[in-house]
């Protein structure tokens, strides 16, 4: 009906092609550089190398920097930090979000404004006091191991009982398993870490600040207010009548939360998890400030090692390959769930 005139079509296409070139230029350039065998600084613009190679990726996966740390170690540090912190802040935050969304209790409005106020605190501003405080918590590896084993057993017992009781009552939906198995996974990770630390014995000093746990605690501290505010915003949109109906049917308070509310919130929990994960995956400042042992370094810190400090020593094609490796997992997930995530971001509010 409203057919576009050819002249307008062509000028629109011309404009969009120019925009496409500007959008694609950095991406194609860095990809081309990452498969370029020549590591010297270019003097002519090369978009696609004459003899493409995957050697740079092999080098990155083998040993990205001069630091004595392998790529798999970096990857596992980054993964543990970002999944651990994202899962913990979600696990802790969802209960508070529900209480805020549904109940009037003493201190509610005060606590809520405290949480909202905290979302305005730039994450880098919260790093300093925790740096000083966590630095004071010192012990040896064996004690840490024991503490982690206790936590691991607690987590496994609680989540195991939760899963078992749900299964016995035939109340187990798909998300119950996600929740229960997620908790069990955290328990298993704690168990693993506990054994490793315990094996190190009493000789090795442990400073909470100088460990991935210290970084994780600081990440959770920064992420929690935002998680609570975000989830509360979503839970507010779930009609109360659903829960009232469940209550009339004889469900307990706990059952309404686990069986009615949480299943409805699963998509938004997933988005929040991914947003926290994405933030923590590329988190730089806390880990840069806290960690001194190269074995604890993360992927993001190493990217800066390549570009900043040792920039002169590391060839550009290695930098390019490394950037692609760091960006790719996030970019793929983000691109797939782009609609939901953008909707979630605008719902969420402010956090730098």
């Amino acid at each position: 009906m409203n057919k576009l005139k050819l002249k307008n079509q062509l000028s629109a296409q011309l404009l969009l092609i120019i925009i496409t070139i500007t959008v694609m230029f950095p991406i194609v350039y860095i990809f081309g550089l990452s498969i370029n065998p020549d590591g010297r600084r270019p003097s002519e613009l090369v978009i696609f190398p004459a003899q493409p190679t995957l050697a740079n990726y092999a080098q990155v996966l083998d040993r990205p920097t001069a630091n004595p740390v392998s790529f798999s170690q970096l990857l596992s540090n980054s993964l543990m930090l970002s999944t651990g912190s994202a899962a913990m802040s979600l696990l802790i935050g969802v209960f508070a979000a529900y209480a805020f969304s549904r109940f009037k209790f003493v201190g509610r409005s005060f606590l809520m404004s405290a949480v909202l106020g905290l979302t305005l605190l730039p994450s880098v501003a919260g790093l300093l006091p925790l740096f000083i405080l966590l630095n004071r918590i010192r012990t040896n590896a064996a004690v840490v191991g024991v503490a982690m084993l206790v936590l691991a057993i607690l987590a496994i017992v609680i989540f195991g009982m939760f899963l078992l009781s749900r299964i016995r009552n035939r109340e187990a939906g798909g998300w119950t398993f996600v929740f229960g198995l997620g908790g069990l996974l955290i328990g298993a990770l704690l168990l693993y870490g506990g054994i490793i630390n315990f094996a190190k014995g009493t000789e090795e000093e442990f400073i909470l600040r100088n460990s991935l746990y210290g970084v994780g605690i600081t990440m959770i501290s920064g992420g929690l207010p935002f998680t609570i505010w975000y989830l509360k915003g979503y839970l507010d949109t779930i009609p109360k009548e659903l829960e009232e109906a469940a209550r009339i049917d004889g469900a307990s308070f706990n059952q309404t939360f686990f069986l009615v509310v949480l299943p409805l919130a699963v998509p938004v929990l997933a988005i929040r998890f991914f947003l926290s994960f994405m933030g923590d995956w590329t988190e730089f400042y806390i880990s840069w400030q806290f960690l001194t042992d190269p074995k604890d370094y993360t992927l993001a810190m190493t990217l800066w090692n390549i570009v900043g400090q040792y920039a002169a020593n590391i060839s550009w094609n290695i930098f390019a390959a490394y950037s692609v490796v760091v960006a790719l997992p996030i970019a793929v997930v983000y691109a797939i769930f782009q609609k939901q995530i953008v909707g979630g971001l605008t719902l969420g509010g402010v956090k730098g």
Partner: protein
Amino acid sequence: MRGSSNANSAGIWPYIFVLPTFLVMGLITFYPIFFNVWMSFTNFQLANIRLENPPEFIGLANYIGILNNDIAVVKIADFSFWKHLFFNIWWAVSSVFTTLIAGILIAIVLNVEGLWFKKAYRVMFILPMVIPNLVVNTVWRNMFDPTSGAINLALMAIGSVFGLPREMFEINWLGSIEHPIGLLFPWQPMPVTYYAMLISNFWRGWPWVTVIATGALQSIPKELYEAASIDGATGPQKLWSITLPLLRPAMVPAAILSYNWTFNLLDIAYFLTGGQPFHETELLVSILFRLVNEQRLYGVAASFAVIVFIVSTIMFLLTNRITRATESYDS
């Protein structure tokens, strides 16, 4: 009635639900914040990290030093709180305006009926948005290299078509001390690096605006345009009187959000520019991180963190006020 009975029957449960969160937050969020406020009134330094060696209480000296641009207190060369604050605000305002205008215009073009390859463009245009900020800024830093960076090499290649010499495009994007457009703010002209920041942020920022604007555009009923056509409205008239007003409710919150993000966009000041030249392109948050990480002036940094928090809150309240004002204008 119903609501109150609900609250009563819940009894102690709300507290049980809130308790774990606030135990954790009390320990790792609220207590550290009070500790930070206490630190801000002391001369806390590296030596005071050990518990046996407590810092001295110095009252408001840190705050006074920061607000008076006292380099003896802050120990960053060329530190000037008000200049940094002005740069930070102008940086956020200018980057939001550029991305917002471009993002909306591109969304409108992409929404034209009968346009070819619409889907392909939409897929390609989300790519900048999905790449982590850290990577975007390190890559742009690499591309802005004065002798071998992709930007200058591309400009040279384009320039050579028109017979322009290569030397013309050896632009020192991240280190030049020149201020190209001096007229803009005569008392504080923007260095070349500011434009590099603007370009990099523009590249990453407009696709996000386009995604939001596209969503809003698609919810505008087509009947409005048809009715306008019957009344004899031209294309620009429809754009001005239907599209833009109906986009506003979605775009104002997006602009506010984007302003508050960009205001504290530490990645761009730390990874892309490093504050160069002469700390002219520092943001408040990057100064804060330098105070902690490089200067190790923990007491001063604690005061600076409090100031950053206050500034962020003021920005949030101001921008929120503007949203409310436009809302009432709409109705």
